[in-house]
């Protein structure tokens, strides 16, 4: 019994409805933002790369690449599908620090930016698995709103529920 998995690649936003499963593979310093409206069982997953849209140059880009603009766009997409903003809950995954080089700690900034943007949008963060120094793969079950997360190495079956 395998449900359809829809992958949010780097810089992408995917939305869907129960019983679909959204996934983001191998999040490093990138952050995965899961938004969920439990009533219609509608949700979205964003795989964002960099903290702030305003730090970009004038060139064209996709808003899904930046944490703050990705969250706004994802809210917009879900509301268009019938979700109600006051029912949204969110979960954060990723934002790791993969290397011990000071300039490479973009993960922490991504997480901070996500918290700030969600606070602005008055969306509660109900769970987090962020930071530390390892990559994560996340599956987002739209039937329940639960996330399953695994890290590298070890048994491929070792999933943690969030």
């Amino acid at each position, binding site marked *: 019994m395998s449900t359809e998995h829809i992958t949010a690649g780097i810089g992408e936003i995917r939305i869907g409805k129960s019983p679909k499963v959204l996934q983001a593979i191998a999040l490093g*310093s990138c952050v995965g933002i899961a938004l969920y409206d439990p009533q219609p069982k509608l949700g979205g997953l964003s795989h964002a*790369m960099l903290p702030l849209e305003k730090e970009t140059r004038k060139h064209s880009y996709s808003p899904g690449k930046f944490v703050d603009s990705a969250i706004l766009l994802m809210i917009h997409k879900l509301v268009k599908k019938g979700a109600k903003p006051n029912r949204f809950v969110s979960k954060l995954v990723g934002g790791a620090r993969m290397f011990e080089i000071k300039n490479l700690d*973009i993960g922490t900034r991504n997480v901070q930016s996500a918290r700030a943007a969600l606070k602005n949008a008055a969306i509660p963060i109900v769970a987090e698995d962020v930071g530390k120094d390892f990559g*994560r*793969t996340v599956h987002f079950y739209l039937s329940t709103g639960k996330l399953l997360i695994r890290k590298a190495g*070890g048994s491929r079956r070792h999933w943690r529920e969030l």
Partner: protein
Amino acid sequence: MTGGTPEDRHEILTKLHADHLDALQEIGNIGAGHSATALSQLLNRRVDMSVPRAAICSIEEFSTKILSDPEEPLVAVISETSGDVAMHLVGLFDLASINRLMWIIRKQKVEDNLMEISTIDRSFICEIGSILLLHYVSAITEFTDLLMFPQVPSIAIDMGKAILDSILLLNAVDYNTVLSIEVDIFTDNVQLNSTMVMLPDRHTLNRIMSQLFSEGWAQE
């Protein structure tokens, strides 16, 4: 060379012609040549290298090009340089190669689960990566006459895509595109593969190109 729509590309990339890419490949050739020599001395074995590839691709494509499975474990040693040219140099190894390398040098296998290797093995692998990277840097310093001071290297052992994406974010020429110069180093009798990747950002690329092509490169 693929990746991104033309309007996604930063203008500096449109200035790169075949001659420029050849020069970048030559830098990769010289750098990795010194790394290969160092590895050969360290292992007391013949070490070969591939023809370098200078490629422009999107961030999305880079990891799929290197990895067959995004969650496949990868060992990466990364060094940041400061000085005239600030960039990141990365040495990538697969798990099997790391195991063979440890076997050759220490007659000892590392853990099957790379995530659980000992601190000493971890620092040992980092040191080997560091030797390769430092030889690379010193060779391109000589060739380009630009000063580069490599910082203490750092190691990550994790899901390949998580590592590569995290490195690329800081080395993208713009927010979509990466310029990478890659060379494979391998030994003949024992399969040992490493890929050395040099990732200049826009400023670094500009600096290197104006140094090499003083007339033929209009600085930004």
